[in-house]
């Protein structure tokens, strides 16, 4: 019986995270989910939010964007359009990105552009959320 899970997070730009963890919490489309080893195989979508990976008594925090997750007994594979470790988040930049995206949303946009801007907004919100919780 595996006591750890292989957590892999990849984005179109890079492999963001690949570690053996004891437990992972992720923002599923139907609510937050905590995954332990030997979870039943499951496929679901993830929404922008925060991932907490518990590894050797420490917690790794990541902000992720939209994506999919595939869970098998020993592996959690997350494909997201964004993934940033908490320590790499630049709060000022994220805040700036959020304001920019909100300003753009107020303008008149076609569907394609609106989708892009909404994704950007969700990304910056997820980053801010992770950063602010991390501090307290």
């Amino acid at each position, binding site marked *: 019986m595996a006591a750890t899970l292989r957590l892999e997070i*990849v984005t179109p730009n890079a492999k963001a995270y690949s570690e053996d963890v004891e437990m992972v919490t992720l923002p599923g489309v139907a609510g937050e989910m905590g995954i332990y080893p030997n979870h039943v195989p*499951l*496929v679901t979508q993830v929404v922008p939010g925060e991932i907490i990976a518990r590894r050797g008594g420490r917690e790794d925090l990541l902000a992720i964007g939209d994506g999919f997750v595939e869970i098998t007994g020993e592996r959690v594979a997350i494909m997201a359009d964004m993934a940033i470790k908490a320590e790499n988040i630049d709060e000022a930049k994220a805040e700036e990105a959020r304001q920019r995206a909100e300003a753009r949303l107020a303008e008149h946009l076609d569907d394609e552009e609106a989708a892009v801007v909404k994704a950007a907004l969700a990304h910056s919100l997820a980053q801010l959320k992770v950063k602010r919780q991390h501090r307290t």
Partner: protein
Amino acid sequence: MPSTRDIRRRIKSVKNTAQITKAMQMVAASKMRKAQQSALAGRPYASLMNQVLGNVVYYAGDITDPLMEKREMRSHCVIIVSTDKGLCGALNANLMREAARFERENTVYIAAGRRAAQFLARTKRNLAAEFTYKDAPLFGEARAIMRFARDLFLEGRADQVSVLYTQFISTLTQRPEVVTLLPLSEIKAVTAGVDGVKAPEDLMHGSTEFIFEPTPAQVLGALLPHYLNFQMYQILLEAKASEQSARMVAMKNATDNAHQLIKDLTLEYNKLRQANITNELLEIASAAMAMQ
């Protein structure tokens, strides 16, 4: 026998050509680095996506999606991803040779890149649409191509959708490749095609059924289109990396050849000059002799 002036002129013109090809080589080299990087960076995501989709399709069971529907193949849609510009060696020639293999009667083509469109127009094949993509392909561009192809498939105007593109292997090697995108039940071909990932069967031993949250239909409905778009995006990246690599190599060869040519011509020029001087000396000597 060319005069010394003719040779001098040739040398000058070859030098100019060398200068141009050298500049193009430099430009291609810097673009190549960027294109290769983004192509390689996208591969882990693409292969993971492939694995997951392989599992999902394999275990979806009775759940089907219109995108997975397998039909008798009467018409075939082929997306050709070529370059916009030439001067990249045999890249496009190789691609078009593959393109010409599909049957003329029942194949509809979608061109991405101007070279493919020109080829199809020249050979009078059935061109359904033409798309362009930039030096740094955007996800939106891939999505536009895929949306068009998906509509063709869903409306029943094409029973299979394949992509013909140049797979980037290394700076020196690029290989034209055909990958079937739709219907998605043919996912195994895609899995094996992109970067030789294991087929879904070997990945799957041991595990049982998958749970889909919230519902299989919803997960498939989101996953399948995203998978297709991303696959197309990765293909554009691969094609770009191939193009820039091929151009860099072609231009490097051209520059080397030009330098070789300059060397040969300079040698010939010097020989001719020497011969002329010898001739003149002879003439002077013989004239002096005659005077005596």
